[in-house]
């Protein structure tokens, strides 16, 4: 297969590759521009260009979306000789990654300014990484999937370590790199074994081979052990990327040490791409043997939910807390993947819709939440303990209000997108008759709620330290909200915050509420994206 005598270049339909091209080439152009014209290096110009590139990539999806929805059922357009596939799900995931990229670029702006860092490299790496994520979402070949994963990951390793003056950032980058490289190796080994078992690296071809084997009732041949080990290794690789237990160990450390805006990208785009690839590999590629991998995914979801909720409550650092919360969310998404893996088409539909909904809702929440932390934590991300959020509502009522919306949404309070996401996952789990998993997920959500409430308590209900702000019960003074601002050493009022960062947080909160009250928005896109897995599943 691999050793062909002449290299045949497959015909490439470039118009379908626009998002990848815009993101990738945009990154290269940005680095070129900023090297040639030093004046563009500083201020917000690179941030603006990056955001524009992200928006352009998002808009380039419009004609593609029209093409994949021409017919009634799902349309799959194979490009680059079958290595990539463009369908409604690809378009949806690409859209999510583009949104995240724009938001994170805006967060970088305020952050770099505060830290006094020079910036084009951050934005370039961000764009390259996003391009890798888009490739992962579109890959129909395990080799290309691996390439996309590496493009995505390596850029993020560097981003994590890019705060040159902070040791903790370098430590985080190093840790992330070592463990990430290890997991990539395991993932690659899994691909090799899968190739050995099925004779192909193409995801759709694997599905075909397994389907034939099943028809011939040959599942119990010697090949199956190689297949199973291959699947297991792939799951380890995915588990690392989405920080599912027991491969989540790195998450709190890396999230705590890495620059906060980078964490918001790690928590959102990286997970989105990984979950998209995971769904495609497991459901479309390995759907025939879902009875083999579903129990494993269920077990991972089980442990992930427990770890993400119970270990979270003993944390005292907000970044670590949200790291555990992101593990908890990963558990929810695994529940959706588990449900979508059933052979029943209806359940697959509900499961994939739940996953698709969760990916966007969660990404926006994560970017917004880490955006707040980035704004609050002060120079060098020094102050990220819960204590530093004490009395924040008095100093920055707007920011605290928005953060409260995001936290309550993560806790799953009704009329937020966070609730709808969790609700859809529960619907999928119940539809797949995984009642225990559904119950456990809800209990984990309650335990996790304690974590979010601790932050809310600190912001709103704890009287700030007497040393920082006048301890003021306010019994006499109506206008006490602003008392004590002068004595603060931490961040100032809302008006002192970088406008871009505040805009990102406000957008996230507004999006959360609007999508929570009108979850039918974008229903059509979600339905189309989920349908891909129903009608194309083996």
């Amino acid at each position, binding site marked *: 297969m691999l050793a062909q005598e002449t290299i045949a270049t497959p015909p490439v339909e470039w118009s379908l590759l626009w998002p990848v091209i815009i993101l990738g080439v945009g990154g290269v152009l940005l680095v070129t521009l900023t090297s040639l014209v030093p004046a563009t290096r500083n201020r917000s110009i690179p941030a603006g260009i990056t955001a524009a590139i992200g928006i352009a990539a998002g808009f380039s999806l419009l004609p593609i979306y029209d093409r994949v929805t021409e017919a009634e059922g799902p349309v799959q357009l194979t490009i680059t000789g079958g290595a990539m596939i463009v369908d409604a799900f690809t378009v949806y995931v690409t859209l999510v990654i583009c949104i995240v990229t724009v938001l994170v670029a805006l967060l970088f702006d305020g952050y770099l300014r505060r830290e006094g860092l020079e910036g084009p490299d951050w934005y370039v790496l961000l764009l390259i990484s996003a391009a890798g994520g888009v490739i992962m979402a579109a890959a129909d070949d395990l080799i290309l999937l691996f390439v996309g994963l590496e493009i995505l990951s390596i850029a993020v390793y560097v981003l994590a370590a890019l705060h040159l003056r902070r040791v903790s950032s370098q430590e985080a980058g190093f840790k992330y790199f070592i463990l990430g490289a290890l997991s990539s190796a395991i993932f690659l080994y899994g691909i090799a074994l899968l190739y050995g078992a099925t004779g192909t690296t193409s995801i759709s071809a694997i599905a075909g081979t397994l389907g034939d084997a099943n028809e011939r009732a040959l599942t119990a041949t010697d090949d199956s052990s190689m297949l199973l080990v291959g699947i297991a290794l792939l799951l380890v690789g995915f588990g690392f990327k989405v920080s599912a237990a027991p491969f989540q160990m790195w998450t709190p450390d890396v999230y705590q040490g890495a620059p906060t805006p980078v964490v918001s990208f790690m928590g959102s785009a990286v997970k989105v791409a990984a979950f998209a690839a995971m769904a495609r590999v497991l459901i479309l590629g390995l759907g025939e043997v879902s009875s083999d991998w579903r129990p494993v995914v269920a077990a991972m979801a089980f442990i992930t939910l427990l770890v993400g909720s119970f270990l979270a409550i003993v944390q005292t650092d907000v970044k670590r807390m949200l790291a555990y919360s992101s593990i908890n969310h990963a558990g929810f998404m695994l529940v959706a993947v588990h449900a979508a893996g059933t052979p029943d088409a209806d359940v697959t539909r509900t499961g994939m819709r739940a996953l698709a909904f969760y990916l966007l809702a969660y990404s926006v929440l994560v970017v917004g939440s880490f955006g707040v932390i980035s704004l609050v934590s002060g120079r060098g991300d020094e102050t990220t303990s819960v204590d530093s959020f004490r009395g924040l509502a008095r100093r920055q009522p707007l920011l605290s209000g928005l953060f409260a919306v995001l936290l309550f949404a993560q806790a799953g309070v009704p009329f937020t997108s966070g*609730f709808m996401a969790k*609700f859809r996952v529960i619907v999928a789990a*119940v539809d797949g008759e995984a009642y225990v998993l559904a119950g456990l997920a*809800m209990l984990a959500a309650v335990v996790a709620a304690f974590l979010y*409430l601790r932050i809310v308590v600190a912001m709103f209900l704890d009287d700030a330290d007497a040393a920082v702000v006048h301890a003021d019960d*306010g019994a006499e*003074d109506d206008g*006490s*909200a602003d008392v004590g601002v002068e004595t603060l050493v931490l961040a100032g009022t809302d008006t002192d915050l970088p406008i871009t960062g505040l805009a990102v947080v406000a957008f996230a909160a507004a999006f959360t509420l609007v999508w929570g009250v009108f979850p039918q928005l974008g229903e059509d896109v979600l339905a189309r994206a989920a349908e891909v897995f129903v009608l194309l599943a083996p």
Partner: protein
Amino acid sequence: MIVLAAESAHTATFPIGPALILVPVLTAVVIAFIGANRAAELKATALLGSSITGAMSLWMLAQFDKTEAGLQFVTRTAWVEDLGLQWFFGIDGISLFLVVLSGVLFPIAILTTDHHHDPKPYYLWLMILMAGSMGVFMALDLLLFFLFFEVVLVPMYFLIGGWGHGNRVYAALKFFLYTMAGGALMLVGIVALAFLTARTTGELTFDVQVLAEHVPALSTTAQTLIFLSFATAFAVKVPLFPLHTWLPDAHTEAPTAGSVILAGVMLKLGTYGYLRFGLYLFPQVAHDLAWIFLTLGVIGILYGAAVATMQKDLKRVIAYSSVAHLGFIALGLFVLNTQGIQGAVFQMVNHGISTGALFILVGWIYERRHTREIAALGGLQKVAPVFAGVFTLVMLSSVGLPGLNGFVGEFLILLGGFQGARWWTIPAVAGVILAALYLLWAYQRVFHGTPDDDNAQFEELRWSEGLAILPLLGLIVFLGVYPKPMLERIEPSVDALVAHLEANIDDFSEPGPEHMPDRPAGVDELIATYHEAELEAASHGDDHGGDHGDDHGDDADHDDADHSDETEEEHG
């Protein structure tokens, strides 16, 4: 059966249901744009918004068709179509008075209490709380109910935590997590119920009416598990005995307005939930497991009373009295007969009125004296006789003195209980006496005797305060003397519910070890006589104005119209 027939009647042209939710929400939005220091404007806006909502709820009361057992003022719009969710609101005799109670209590709570600090978020949260409370009693889509059921936690959490006393953060956290933990499994239960029903109907829906039709076809195990998931959530909210520990903390530490709403409106979520979503959806299981809830209810009555007696803090006395009162309501619900359920619905409203008023009065005592400790108070009657008089009236209503509203509800519950669950009712009767004990004793210690120097400064009831609490006092007397207008609006819906229960319970019999098939001769007549004498108002629609020789005779309908007008005036 219940509510199935009836959507045609009174499908309102004006969408009153959504309006009752949207007006407070819009008020909250307006408040968000008013400057944080303009306390007077903020309070006025909140008062205006809540009063408009309250007035709309009274308009609904006036428009309510009392002969109709089914839903009225129905609005229904599709929401999330692939999941079958809808915005589905409606009112029947069971929810009507709870909506009106919320509509009346909020303006009064805002009027009678002070925000103390940070007026803007305070009134913002109160308005959101009001919207949620309205929604929860009107939602007829099971998931929509759950959404409102959970969302009211957030404003209440902030109200307790931000404006409460003493250990407020702990109380707020406990309140939030208890309720959320209770609700967690309920969500799974709701979804499971919808999906199991969808297997037979082929269509996913959370419409309570549709679900109720298909539940009896499910396996007993499924029914039992789903019912238990619901029952746990409601048991936390009621609260029933072992799950009640959040209540004393939350009630005591909450600011006065929070306590009023918590007692008046939010505690009803549990009992209302049992009625609407427990009994109605799962008649058979509710019947089979009724003994659990009867037992927990009775334990609540006795335990709440015993603990209330021992409290040193006046507010805690009232908090524990709620445990006892809610135990009564649970008892009334699970005897599964008309009197019991009707009494329970009546008592839900009563408890809201009298406990709400008690919390307001205790709040005023605290404002004046900055303590609620019973030992520190004393002799207030000498310096503030009017205040003491008002307190006495409200307290006696809570005790259940005949002639005041509390008596009617308790009597109906005991009457129903005696027919349906005799062995549980007998100890429950002791609760009536214990209520007299702990409340009168507390009253005695606080108001009797000679005031010391501090208490001698106690300020008499102000005119403004008197006017603000007057509607509640009026309701206490009016409903005690003449409960008919209220009972006859509750009754058709309760009758329909009981008919639904009877039709769907195999071997419908009174729960309990002893069915007493052969009652001693004359007992039935005796009960019937009592029933008529005390409760001619509760007589069935057909018997209206008939030849019972009741006091109102042929004028019943006419009288009744007059009195409902009165009710409105008193509300206003």
